[in-house]
C-alpha cells in the first residue's frame, strides 16, 4: 500500500547483498529539523526530491545538493546517503514497485523492437537519468498529492495514488528510452564515458530550458556542460540532431506561442520576454517555424 512511511531506521547495512526489490511502491517522507544523516544504502528505482528545504545527497560517490526546484532519479542498485541541516526540511524518497517497473520497461522497449526499430540494450539501466531534473511542474504537483493520499481516508486513496505513480513511472521510462536513443547517437563505446557525456549535454539542455529568457552565449552553455565550445556544439548536434542555437530558438518560439495564446501582451513585449533582442528577427523566425506571423498566429488561436 502506498502508505506514507517515515525514513527507515538507520542500521548498518551489508552493501554487498542489499539491493532492494520493492513489492509495491514505497513513499518515504518526514519533516526533519536540525542536523540529520542517513547512512549509505542501496536504492530501488525511484525519485528523490525535497518538498521543502534543501539537502545534500551523495549518489554513487557524487555529491548533489537538492532543493525544492529539482528532483533526482535514482537507478536500482545505486548507493545513496543523505545529510540535512537547518529547520523543517522535508525529503521525499519514492521507490517504484520493482516488478511493475520492469514489466512496463519491457513493454515499451519490446514494442518498439516489434515496430521495426533496432533493439536497445541496457534499458533496465536508468543511469542516464541519474542527474538533477528541473522544470517539471508535473512532479512538483504530484508529490504533495501522493503524500496526502498516502495518509488519507479518501475513497480509493490507494488506487488514486497508484494512478499518479503510474504517470510518473511511465514518464521516467519514456525519458529513459529517449535518453538511450540519444546517447547511442554519441557512438561512445565505453559505458561510463557515454553516460557522463549524456548527462553533461542534458544538463546544458535543461539549463537553456530554464534560462531561455536571458541573454547568454553558447560559450556559457558549453561551460555548463563542462566542455570547450567547439566540442559542445558538435556533440550536442550529434546527440540531439539539432544545434544548441536552433534548440534555444525552438524553446523561445514555443514560449512565445504560449504567451500569444494565453495573454494579451503585445508582440513586442513577448519578443523581449522570451529572450529575443530584435522584433524583426523574432518575427522572421516565428514565421519560419509556424507559417504565420505572431499576430496571425494569435488571431488563428482565438477564432
Amino acid at each position, binding site marked *: 500500500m502506498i502508505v506514507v512511511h517515515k525514513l527507515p531506521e538507520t542500521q548498518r547495512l551489508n552493501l554487498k547483498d542489499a539491493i532492494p526489490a520493492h513489492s509495491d511502491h514505497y513513499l518515504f517522507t518526514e519533516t526533519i529539523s536540525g542536523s540529520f544523516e542517513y547512512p549509505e544504502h542501496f536504492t530501488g528505482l525511484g525519485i528523490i526530491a525535497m518538498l521543502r528545504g534543501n539537502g545534500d545527497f551523495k549518489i554513487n560517490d557524487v555529491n548533489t545538493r537538492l532543493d525544492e526546484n529539482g528532483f533526482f532519479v535514482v537507478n536500482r542498485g545505486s548507493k545513496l546517503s543523505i545529510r540535512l541541516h537547518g529547520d523543517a526540511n522535508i525529503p521525499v524518497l519514492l521507490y517504484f514497485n520493482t516488478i511493475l517497473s520492469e514489466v512496463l520497461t519491457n513493454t515499451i522497449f519490446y514494442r518498439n523492437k516489434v515496430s521495426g526499430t533496432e533493439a536497445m540494450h541496457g534499458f533496465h539501466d536508468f543511469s542516464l537519468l541519474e542527474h538533477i531534473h528541473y522544470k517539471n511542474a508535473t512532479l512538483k504537483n504530484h508529490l504533495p*498529492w501522493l503524500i496526502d493520499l498516502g495518509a*488519507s481516508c479518501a475513497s480509493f486513496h490507494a488506487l488514486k495514488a497508484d*494512478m499518479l505513480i503510474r504517470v510518473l513511472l511511465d514518464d521516467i521510462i519514456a525519458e529513459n528510452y529517449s535518453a538511450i536513443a540519444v546517447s547511442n547517437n554519441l557512438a561512445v563505446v565505453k559505458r561510463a564515458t557515454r553516460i557522463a557525456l549524456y548527462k553533461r549535454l542534458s544538463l546544458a539542455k535543461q539549463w537553456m530550458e530554464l534560462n531561455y529568457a536571458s541573454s547568454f552565449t553558447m560559450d556559457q552553455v558549453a561551460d555548463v556542460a563542462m566542455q570547450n565550445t567547439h566540442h559542445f556544439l558538435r556533440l550536442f548536434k550529434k546527440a540531439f540532431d539539432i544545434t544548441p542555437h536552433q534548440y534555444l530558438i525552438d524553446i523561445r518560439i514555443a514560449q512565445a506561442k504560449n504567451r500569444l495564446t494565453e495573454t494579451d501582451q503585445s508582440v513586442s513585449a513577448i519578443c523581449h520576454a522570451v529572450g529575443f533582442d530584435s522584433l524583426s528577427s523574432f518575427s522572421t523566425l516565428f514565421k519560419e517555424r509556424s507559417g504565420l506571423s505572431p499576430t496571425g498566429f494569435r488571431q488563428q488561436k482565438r477564432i
Partner: protein
Amino acid sequence: MEKQEWSRFKLRVNIKTQPQEAYNSWITPGALESWFLRRAIFRDQQGKARDKNSVIMAGDSYEWYWHGYPDSILEKGTVLKANGSDTFSFTFSMGCPVTISIYPESGETIVELVESDLPTDNDTVLKHFVGDSKGWIFYLVNLKSILEGGLDLRNKRTELTNVITS
C-alpha cells in the same frame, strides 16, 4: 469459523427505486457523472467517444476522473458486460472484474457489487480489499442518496482533501 476470502468482496445497498432506474444509473457516461465520477469517457471499439446519453456497451474502454482530484489521477479499464437490464460488469483497479447485479428484494431494489480476482499477496491485499471496498461503500451510499432524495454527498473541492466523500 470460515477462513476470510481475500480475493473478492461483495457489497449490497438497498434503494427505494425501480430496478431499471438503478440500472440506468450505471449505463451512460452522464448517469455515472451524476453520482460517481467527475468525468466519464467511454469509447467504442473503434475508439469513438460516446456522448453523455449514449448507452455503454460491452467492449467499450473507459477513462474515469474523480471530483477533488486533478486530471493526472485517472482510472482506465474495459466494460465486460452490459445486458440492458440487471447486469453491468467492468475491469477496475489493476484489472479486477467488478460486477453489478440489480434485483428486487423485500419491496426495494438491491444494487450488489462484487469485486473479484483481487491479489492476495500480503503486501497488496490491504490496498485492494480494504481500499477498494471502502471506496465503493461511499459511492454506493451516494447512489442511494441521489436516487432516493436527490442529495449528492460528494466533495467536489480540490482544496479539501483526506475526506471519505472524495
